[in-house]
């Protein structure tokens, strides 16, 4: 576990609305450099909304998001991303008619082109499967490969903070393990900071250094991954079939 404590991302009292409907009711959380932080919660708790609010789409109505010492709350999305936040969005959202290589090129759109080959080699080392599929169209990949591509595409932008929105969605347990192993490797070897939103609470909390639990747009619990895994409420709500 990382011992550094300087904060890379800090969310303070963020409230987000969809029209009149409240999605986030004053969320506070911190992500420190070199950490894997996860947020777990049921459907509709506001996990993805938080992820999208960090990227400025939609923007927070109240509160502040500080990234790397800068207030990014009201910045346009492309400027936030250009500061080193990469997101692998929910549902993967790869470009189906473009090849794997072109998808990765899109990920590197904001990076100096001379670094492309180096970065490409790096993501292929992480996901060798993508190398085999290099000239195949994104839409013809399997679900797991598409998720790998979505993460690899996000990595191509050389992020300081990687946001992952439900990378285990709809994938077989074996593939989920591969992907979580890759995330752990990224964190341990490259020191990449990861903020992970998950429904797969068990895997996510085992992987993460720290975790938050979100219910109805509020953060109800936080602690280290191991702590949260032991908590009775977490076990009941997220690990044992949703019984209370």
């Amino acid at each position: 576990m990382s011992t550094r404590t300087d904060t890379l991302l800090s969310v303070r009292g963020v409230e987000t609305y969809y029209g009149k409907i409240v999605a986030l009711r004053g969320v506070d959380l911190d992500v420190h450099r070199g950490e894997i932080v996860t947020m777990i919660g049921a459907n509709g708790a506001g996990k993805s909304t938080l992820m999208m609010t960090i990227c400025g789409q939609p923007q927070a109505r109240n509160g502040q998001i500080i990234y790397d010492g800068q207030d990014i709350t009201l910045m346009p999305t492309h400027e936030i991303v250009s500061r080193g936040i990469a997101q692998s969005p929910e549902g993967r959202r790869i470009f189906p008619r473009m090849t794997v290589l072109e998808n990765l090129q899109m990920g590197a759109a904001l990076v100096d082109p001379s670094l492309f080959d180096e970065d490409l080699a790096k993501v292929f080392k992480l996901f060798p499967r993508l190398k085999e599929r290099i000239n195949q169209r994104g839409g013809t990949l399997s679900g797991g490969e598409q998720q790998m591509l979505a993460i690899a595409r996000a990595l191509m932008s050389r992020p300081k903070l990687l946001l992952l929105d439900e990378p285990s969605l709809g994938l077989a347990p074996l593939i989920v393990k591969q992907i979580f192993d890759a995330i752990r490797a990224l964190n341990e070897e490259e020191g990449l900071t990861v903020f992970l939103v998950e429904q797969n609470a068990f895997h996510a909390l085992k992987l993460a250094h720290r975790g938050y639990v979100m219910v109805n747009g509020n953060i109800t619990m936080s602690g280290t991954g191991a702590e949260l895994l032991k908590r009775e409420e977490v076990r009941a709500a997220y690990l044992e079939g949703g019984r209370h």
Partner: protein
Amino acid sequence: MAVSGTKTPVAGPQGDPNSLQASIKDAAMAAFLAGVLGFFFIGIRTDIAPGGLDLKMRWGAWIISILIVFAGRLLLNLFVYKTRRPVTRNLSIGLSGSESRLAQAGKVLKWGLFAFALILPFFFTTFFPGRDRQFIDLAILIMTYIMLGWGLNIVVGLAGLLDLGYVAFYAVGAYSFALLAQYLDFGFWLALPLAGLLAATWGVILGFPVLRLRGDYLAIVTLAFGEIIRVVLLNWYEFTKGPDGISGIPKPTFFGLELKRGEGGFADFFGIAYDPIQRFIFLYYIIFILALITNFVTMRLRRLPIGRAWEALREDEIACRSLGINTRNTKLTAFAIGAMFGGFAGSFFATRQGFISPESFTFLESAIILAIVVLGGLGSQIGVVIAAVVMIGGIEMLRNLGFLQQVFGSGFDPVQYRMLIFGLAMVLIMVWKPRGLISTREPSAVLKEKKRIGADMVAQGEGH
């Protein structure tokens, strides 16, 4: 036939596949419907008679129409609707199997067409000396539509922004040149870049309000924009001369030489005999080069980050945002560059015609250009060429089908049926090749060997 509407395949019965009885029953039902619906349309004829209308019953025609519907429905039931496999599916399997061969043939075809286009005027002057002017004029027209198709392809095919008002930029280009020539005495070559620039500016002006729109909503707004431009041109009489149009638009010069008879003309300068055909050949090469520039720029842009961003935008806008693409600027450049080529083509149109009026820039033009792009296959350059040749050349060919008059009587004018044939062609292509003639998308970057997968194999990226 007026009653053909009752034969909708949607109503195809879902009973026992081989039951003759069910087929006959269904056909009888269709015939009954045809009888009811056709009674007034076919069975009764009104003639103008002194003191009003005279009703005349046409029992023969009515009964024949019922019989035709019965027989047609029965045959369709037996051989199409009730067969275990729909006929169209067999056809489309055959076609998609030929996908890779088609793409291969496309490559050969591309260079073949290019070579032919290069020598085209001389081909016609040599082999069809009597009708060379007509053919070269047609080639100019087709080439104009190819260029417009390629320009629109940037907006619709690459960036995926459905633009129903593309003719607006064509009109802006044409009127820019015509007005610059009329008020400021500009020549074609001086006005051409300005016209492109003005059209691009209008592209951005249109682009701004529609940035947040997609799909149907975008289409409606662009359609309105196309009409607004036309209506303004029509009503701003003091400036544009409204419906009277602008005439006397100057012809392009060859490095300052006019293509005219006598002293100081092109023929005189080079010491060759003057021939009016030279002007057509010259115009042909201008539009040929303009179209080539359009194609070249598009192909180059596709390999650059901006072009890739266009395609990514078409696939998934949210993913684009999450990757830090500035979607606003990306869309605006697509609108601007597409509009610029429309403006160039418009200038050329003005100089070729020598006369323009708002009549030339109706919605039908937009529809034809869009049809060329869609039928050719969104994003496919060679597809646009084929579609333009078929659609624009096809209409002209209709004029030459004299034998049809022997079949349908001397009053039959095939050109009158062009919209019907258009519609039919479109329905057929959309049934068999729903993503256009050339639906494979050539990757813009490749490592090692190439692999082609038909677009129909891949989930449709609508990017909502």
